[in-house]
Each structure stands twice: as C-alpha cells, then as structure tokens.
C-alpha cells in the first residue's frame, strides 16, 4: 500500500478495508467512528490550546505588550499550565440552580461544535462525512450552540447570566441570517452544497477571486456575521465583562467553564474553516490557470497545511477585529444587522445570481 500526504484517500480506504477484512461491517463502522471521534477530540484540544495562546500573543502585540513569555520559550506552555489549573479548580455548586440543565449546557455547546467539525474537509480524503448538503448542515449545527448558551443562562439562577443568554439569543438569531445568506451567495456560484465539490470547483481559482465583487462582499459580510455568531468582540455583549461579569457562564467554574471557553475558540476555528472552505478554496492549493511551474510549486505544500494556513489566516482577521473595535451596544448591534448587512446581503445575492445567469463566472 502506498500512502501520500498529498492524497489521503488511499490511507483512509486502507484503514476501512483492513477493518472490514477482520471484523463484521457493523463493528468496523463503530470502530471507525471511535477513531474519528478521538481524532477530533485531540484536534479540539490542540487547536483550543493553540488559539488561546495565539489570541493572547496577537492581542498583546496589538496593544504594544509582550503577552505570555514566562512558561517555556516565548510563553508557549502558558495555556497548558492554565488548562492544568482549570482541571484542578473546584466545581462550585450553585444554590437553587436547575442542576440538570446547568450540567447539560456545556455539553450541548461542545457537542454542537463537534458535530460541525465532523463535516469539514481537512485535506484530500481526510473528510469524516461528505454530506451532499454540507453547507446547510454546517449552518444548522453551528446555530445549535445557542441552545446551550440559553440553557446556561436560564439554569444558573443569576440575573447576569440570564441577561447575557438573552442577548446572545437575540444576536445569534439575527446574525444567523447574514451568515446563511452570505453562504447561499457562494452556493449560487458553486451550484452545489457538497463541500468536496465546492472545493473541486475552486481548482482553477478560489471563489473570492473568480466570484468578482459579490464574492468579496459576501466574504466581508460572512466575517462580520461569523464574528457575531461566535459571541466574540466587538459583538461580545453576551459576556460583556464590564456589565455582566462574564455573561452566561458567570456561575460556571473549573472544567465546565473550560468547556465553554474551549467551545468559544473552536467555534471561531469552525467559522474560519467554513470561510476558508467556501471562499478560499479549502485544502486546494493556489493554482493559476496556465502557470504550470507555479502550480507545481504550490502543490508541494500538503493540502492539510493549506487548509490550516487559510483557517488560521481568517482566525487572525477575526482576532484583529476583536482587538481593534470597541463593543457595540445592543441597539447598534441590531441596527447593523437589520438595516445594513441584511439589505446589502439580499442585493448581493441577486447580483451573484445575475452574474451566474449571464455566465461571467469561470
């Protein structure tokens, strides 16, 4: 069997066939699911640790500071130390809290992000499940996290938590619309909702280049709305520290708080990964039609690193937004969505449909 890091299809098929050769198909599927689940959880932990570290460094540099620099070289192991500390922190029981919902909430939030990441294509052949409604599925599960947020706010028996959760609900319900319409614009261009086909359609140019101006507008709207959907600054009203202590997770401590914290960063990564897949070509290297030498050089970088690089690039843009702009008021937030993003988005969708109809796209 020959494996290559440029095309992992043979590797995954080899695992599948060798499992099916030794045990019954039902057990083979079960074991494959366990392997994928473990791989995703490990990826979760690594990405979470890295993103927290990256955010602290990025924010420090933008504020003329140094950031964490004591634990390990350049503070690399700071987040590991923080995680170990969080694991040992006492879980404070809350009086008069709705115990069942209180304990359930962090899991709903984290399960929503696990479900979303399962459908993302990481590299050629490294794709847990390739749904033919991939984009639709991603939108559906990524908006499930708000149920966990609402439950956390409701069950905590705390006014700050409740206000934070309600704000988060209003915010996600409004911005979900913009995320959806921005993605629908790109689906119109691609002509399919299957993520693998969307990536294949970007072989000779990413959609942000081939989609002309509507794709750029959709990208900007997607980044803004995606930042709002992850409850990050400048749209972090749901946990506005100065007003609501910590918003919906005020009453959480220890590992339950860590789950919320992890979910926030993973959701940021998922939003960035969707943007990378739909607008920037996913794992597809940068190709220019006719430049064969250039394309060969670009193909030397494995697809997995293209995907990670693009995702972290978008994550960096989101961090840049967070550490530049002050937090919006709730009325400004809703004005931005309903009076600006939504009309522009609908107009943009019509423009894209027109472009596709007259055949200006490649």
């Amino acid at each position, binding site marked *: 069997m020959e494996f290559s890091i440029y095309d992992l299809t043979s590797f995954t098929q080899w695992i599948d066939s060798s499992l099916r050769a030794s045990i019954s198909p039902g057990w083979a599927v079960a074991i494959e699911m366990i392997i994928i689940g473990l791989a995703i959880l490990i990826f979760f932990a690594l990405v979470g640790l890295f993103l927290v570290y990256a955010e602290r460094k990025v924010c420090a*540099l*933008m504020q003329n*500071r*140094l950031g964490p620099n004591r634990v390990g070289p350049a503070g690399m192991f700071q987040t590991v130390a923080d995680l170990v500390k969080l694991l040992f922190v006492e879980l404070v029981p809350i009086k008069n809290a709705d115990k069942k919902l209180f304990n359930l909430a962090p899991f709903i939030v984290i399960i929503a992000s696990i479900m979303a990441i399962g459908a993302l294509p990481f590299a050629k052949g490294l794709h847990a499940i390739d749904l033919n409604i991939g984009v639709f599925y991603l939108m559906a599960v990524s908006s499930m996290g708000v149920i966990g947020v609402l439950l956390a706010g409701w069950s905590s028996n705390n006014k700050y938590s409740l206000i934070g959760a309600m704000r988060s609900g209003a915010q996600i319900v409004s911005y979900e619309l913009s995320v959806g319409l921005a993605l629908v614009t790109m689906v119109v261009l691609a002509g399919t909702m299957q993520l693998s086909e969307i990536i294949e359609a970007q072989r000779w140019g990413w959609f942000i280049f081939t989609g002309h101006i509507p794709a750029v507008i959709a990208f900007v709207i997607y980044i803004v709305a995606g930042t709002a959907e992850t409850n990050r600054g400048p749209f972090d009203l749901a946990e506005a520290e100065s007003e609501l202590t910590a918003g919906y997770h005020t009453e959480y401590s220890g590992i339950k708080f860590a789950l919320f914290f992890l979910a926030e960063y993973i959701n940021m990564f998922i939003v960035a990964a969707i943007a990378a897949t739909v607008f920037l070509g996913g794992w597809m290297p940068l190709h220019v039609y006719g430049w064969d030498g250039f394309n060969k050089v670009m193909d030397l970088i494995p697809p997995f690193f293209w995907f990670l690089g693009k995702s972290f690039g978008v994550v960096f843009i989101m961090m*840049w937004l967070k550490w*530049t702009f002050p937090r919006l008021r709730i009325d400004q937030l809703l004005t931005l969505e309903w009076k600006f993003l939504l009309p522009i988005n609908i107009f943009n969708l019509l423009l894209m449909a027109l472009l596709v109809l007259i055949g200006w796209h490649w």
Partner: protein
Amino acid sequence: MKSFIRYIKSIFDGLITLLKGLGVTGKYFFKPGTTWTQQYPNNRRELKMFDMFKGEVIMPHDEQNEHKCTGCGICEINCPNGSIEIISASITSEDGKKQRIIDKHIYHLGMCTFCGLCVKTCPSQALAFGQEFEHAVFDRTRLTKILNQPGSKLKKGVA
C-alpha cells in the same frame, strides 16, 4: 432618494473609519519594536525609574550632612492618614535664642498612600520623592523609617 444616497454614503464612511482603526493596530502588530513592556526582574540592573515616580518619601541631605527640615510640623498636619510623626527638640543657638529643631522625622511607609501632600506643602522643600520602589521586608517594623540621618544639621539660611 436623498436619504438613500446618505445611506450608501454612511456605509462607505463607516468602512473607511473601521479600516483606519484596523490600520493602527495592524501597524503595531507587524512593526517590531513598538512594545513598551519592561521585563522587570530581568532588567533590575538597568532599570531606571522616571523623575516624577513616587517611590517613597525621602529627605535629601547634602555633602555636609545637612538637611532643610525646620521641624515646623506642616507635613505632619497635612498627612491624611498619619504616616508622619515629628519629634522636635529645642536647642539654644549661638546668639542665645531658643530654637526649635528636628529630632526625629518618623515616616511610616506602611501607611503612606503616596498622595504627595507632605512634599507639596513643605515650606522649605525639605522632602522629596525617591525612586526606590522595592519595599518588601520580612518585618513590619522595618517600614517605619527615620528620615533625618543621625548627626545631621539644619542647613544655614533655611528659616
């Protein structure tokens, strides 16, 4: 129509101002050498505090071990939390007059809030702020300091 044009204009104006803000933080991020953080325990040797830094209250003495404190007690009266105690003594000067001089200028560093009222109100500028700030000690009594050095005298010409 007019309001529609204003609406379109507001979008572009907003975008331009947002990009300006992004430009500032982007400049800080990509340009090295803009960090202002002092890596304190590592740079202890070279660390020099700025002139206006309020580390502790000191009484400057010159080479002849002379200070300017007349023992008037204005600093003690002005201190809002009683960090200063003046113990004065009286001596007879050469021309036979009785004169009040400072015996001990006691300064409780542990109670001081560094408001600067003593330094500001001293009529003879006898007090000043020093730049020493590493005040951690193992015993609380060591935070009580006597500012005038032993054997020091009042400078000539200070009333």
